[in-house]
């Protein structure tokens, strides 16, 4: 829908440039498009999950310049000039699983998995924060706070917290 010339000329469409998972892209999008729809429908990256589309469940969490954002509450045009990391951006052919993901698997922190990509991104953002701010608390209370915006109905969170603690307290 976005590459057709007729669309570009429509009122309210905009060209934006940004980096997605390290690769520069240029797309034409309606100004009202949400980031989650840009990610899932335009970029066709389905790892970012739509849980509520109202900013309550955290399943659609992505990183913008390293910080966790609910992609369902973020207007896509605001991604202009920024670095977007989705769950797909944590995997490479050489290294298919990020340390956060490895710890989640090892600790049994994944059940149905619908919340998992968002959960991974929130922990990743917290890990980034810990790296830039060495005095930040990284005990289980701090981790709970970091993922309080991510709902999970299967695990009771215990193993997710354990996984993050194992990763960040070492």
């Amino acid at each position, binding site marked *: 829908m976005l590459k057709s010339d007729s669309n570009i000329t429509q009122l309210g469409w905009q060209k934006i440039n940004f980096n997605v998972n390290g690769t520069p892209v240029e797309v034409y999008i309606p100004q009202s498009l949400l980031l989650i729809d840009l990610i899932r429908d335009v970029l066709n990256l389905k790892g970012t999950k739509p849980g509520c589309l*109202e900013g309550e469940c955290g399943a659609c969490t992505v990183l913008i310049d390293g910080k966790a954002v609910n992609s369902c509450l973020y207007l896509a045009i605001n991604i202009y000039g920024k670095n977007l990391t989705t769950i797909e951006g944590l995997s490479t052919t050489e290294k298919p699983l990020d340390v956060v993901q490895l710890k989640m698997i090892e600790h049994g922190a994944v059940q*149905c998995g619908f919340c998992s990509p968002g959960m991974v991104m929130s922990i990743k953002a917290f890990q980034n924060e810990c790296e830039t701010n060495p005095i930040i608390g990284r005990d289980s209370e701090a981790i709970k706070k970091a993922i309080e915006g991510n709902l999970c109905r299967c695990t009771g*969170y215990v193993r997710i917290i354990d996984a993050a603690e194992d990763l960040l307290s070492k």
Partner: protein
Amino acid sequence: MTKNLKIIGKPTPKIDANIRVTGEAQFGHDIQLPNMLYGAILRTKYPVAEIISIDTSKAKKLEGVKCVITADNIDVNNISYRRDHPILKKGQVNCIRDEIAAVAATSKEIAQKALELIEVKYKVREGIFDPFEAIKEDAPQINHFIDGKYPNKNIAEHFHYEHGNLDEEKAISKYIVSHRYTLPRVTHCCMATSNMTADYSKTDGKLTLYSTTQVPFLYQRDIARALKMEPSKIRIIQVVIGGGFGSKLDMYPYEPICALLSMKTGQPVQLIFSREEEFIASPTRQTMIYDVTAGADENGRFTFRDVRVTLDNGAYTSWGATTPFVMMQTFSSLYQCPACRFDSTSVYTNNVYAGSFRGYGNPQATFALERTIDMLAEEIGMSKSEIRILNANFKGEITKQGLHFNTCGHKEALETVIEKVKGHTHPLVPSQEWKTKRYKRGVGYASMLHVGGGAKIYPSDGCGTTLKIDPFGYLTIITGSSEIGQGSETVLAMIASEELGIDISRIKVINTDTDIKPWDVGVHASRTSFVAGNSVLGAVKKLKEKISPKAAQLLKTNVDDLIYEKGLIKSVINESSIELDKVVRAIHFKEPGELCIDTYFFEPSSEFADNEFKGNVSGAYAFASQSVEVEVDTYTGNVKVLDVYVAQDVGKVLNPLGLAGQIEGGVVMGMGYALLEELIVDKGMILNPNFHNYKLPTAMDVPGIHFYPIETEDSLGPYGAKGVGEAPLIPTAAAIANAVSDAIGVQIDSLPVTPEKVLRALEEKF
């Protein structure tokens, strides 16, 4: 059971965790088929109304709309086990979920726009939202599709059970308590909303459904009956399921609607609920009102239980109406009970209807029973731990309902959680300090009994397995059972790995396609590890009967002397060994040539309940006890759960990692039920259809959860294991309510225990 196990009992990460944690797993939301359309459903604006007219002409004219259906242009049967539920409603709507029309369009936006263009004229009617009003003789009939099974026109379902002599037991009861309990309407909140992608092929008349059902074969039959099709022309492919918890045990209108849209257009159609729609239109836990009278003799031994339950059935019937089947077991058989009478009535109202939800009525029953036990203990002046241990179930007990407790960890579970909470708890505040102490702590106990070896409620409670070893030594398990995130694939692979000595990384599990997999009842009743696990064991045994003779021949030894280990088959006699894949190739490719494939069907030895609901309906029974310490802020009414101690008779730990996940997830779900969750319904309207106003527990709410598995090693379970999935949720709310009651000295008789309720109770007390 002294066998030295290599992988069973060892923490094993889920074999499907990688694809889930990377977002690679394809949930229903992620499916894209060529030429796919998007479906959407128009629901009623009012819970109760006459439909004067439906005008779809403007919607049909909208560019991109391919199909609009109403009750007038489809040829279908009613759904639900009572056949009381039309897929699309005509003439009248009866609850706020009611589906009036549906569209298929080239985009989600166009589908939504089309719904706005459908003009429906309503004549709003008064509804009945209270089951006690609906059951009155002069109440108007709510559901017009019922078959007159009961004399009262608004009764959807009734159960009666009794054992023992109630009058005699009442007479010898020194202590009797009577109380009413009200249980709220809560909902599953699966993180993935309800979804379906239907793909009908005009050319061969086959319908493929990418579905999230937990019961694929029953579902295939239900879809066929709804759509008047041949069941075998329907292929169910289970997508990765983003949470089940019982919600996907029935078929709901949106599923045949999605199929109809595909059949009408000849194109694939995808239908996905918004979160608001999920709150409004997906099933709930059954709400109910319990009246319990129970007694004890002068020593504190239980004498009788007399129970009446009124269920708000909602406007149509789903599995919620049958939850008394499970609830009566708790009243008849949890703790020894000489006499019991249990009556339940499910009454039609104009509220939304309930489905099944993890525990299947048991959390409600356990709440009512365990609160009553606390009241009895107070009446007697006995300690709440002592009264429970005195009456606990025991190994070898055959209950009056006919349940055989071949193994039973009830007493051990109770003793464990009583001991553990004692070691950690803060001393209780003496009552005279009441007025000066803001924070009060209390301890509560509760136990539960649940089926742990399947549940014989269908003509078969069985599960089929096909095993295939390829010429490279990899094993494929094709199981009838389904994965909904609970980790069954991993447990089945562990069992096969244990028995065949094949590394788990070389085992694949195929379990999502009704055209391929053998029959199974489905994921319910905590049955998968027990039933599907036993089925894998049976299949392995058969497969070994094929492989071992060839291996013995090659190793010049006897079949009985072989062990399967680390990809090898070894002789314990002459210490020779051969790679498993070599043996497989020798069987495949040497004359006369045979495949290393076998199929096995496991049917548990359990029996059907008779017409008095008596009988040994499960292959094994699970027991659990929990103790909880809470802190109540008497200024705000806030309840904080500090620690939960869980001791559960799991028979045998198969995968400690998966088991702990089930326990913790269950406890936190039970905590939500106890303290936070309620779907607020006013005159049939749902007032809080979002996560902002319907509170789920978050990571911040997680208490200390301490788990002590009890291994009773049931002879019928795989390696002695019993079902575990539902159990951890069942006693949690009861134990929390008991702890709150202990902390502040007031009776808690409804859930959730909100700050408002706590403050009101405190106010009434002083």
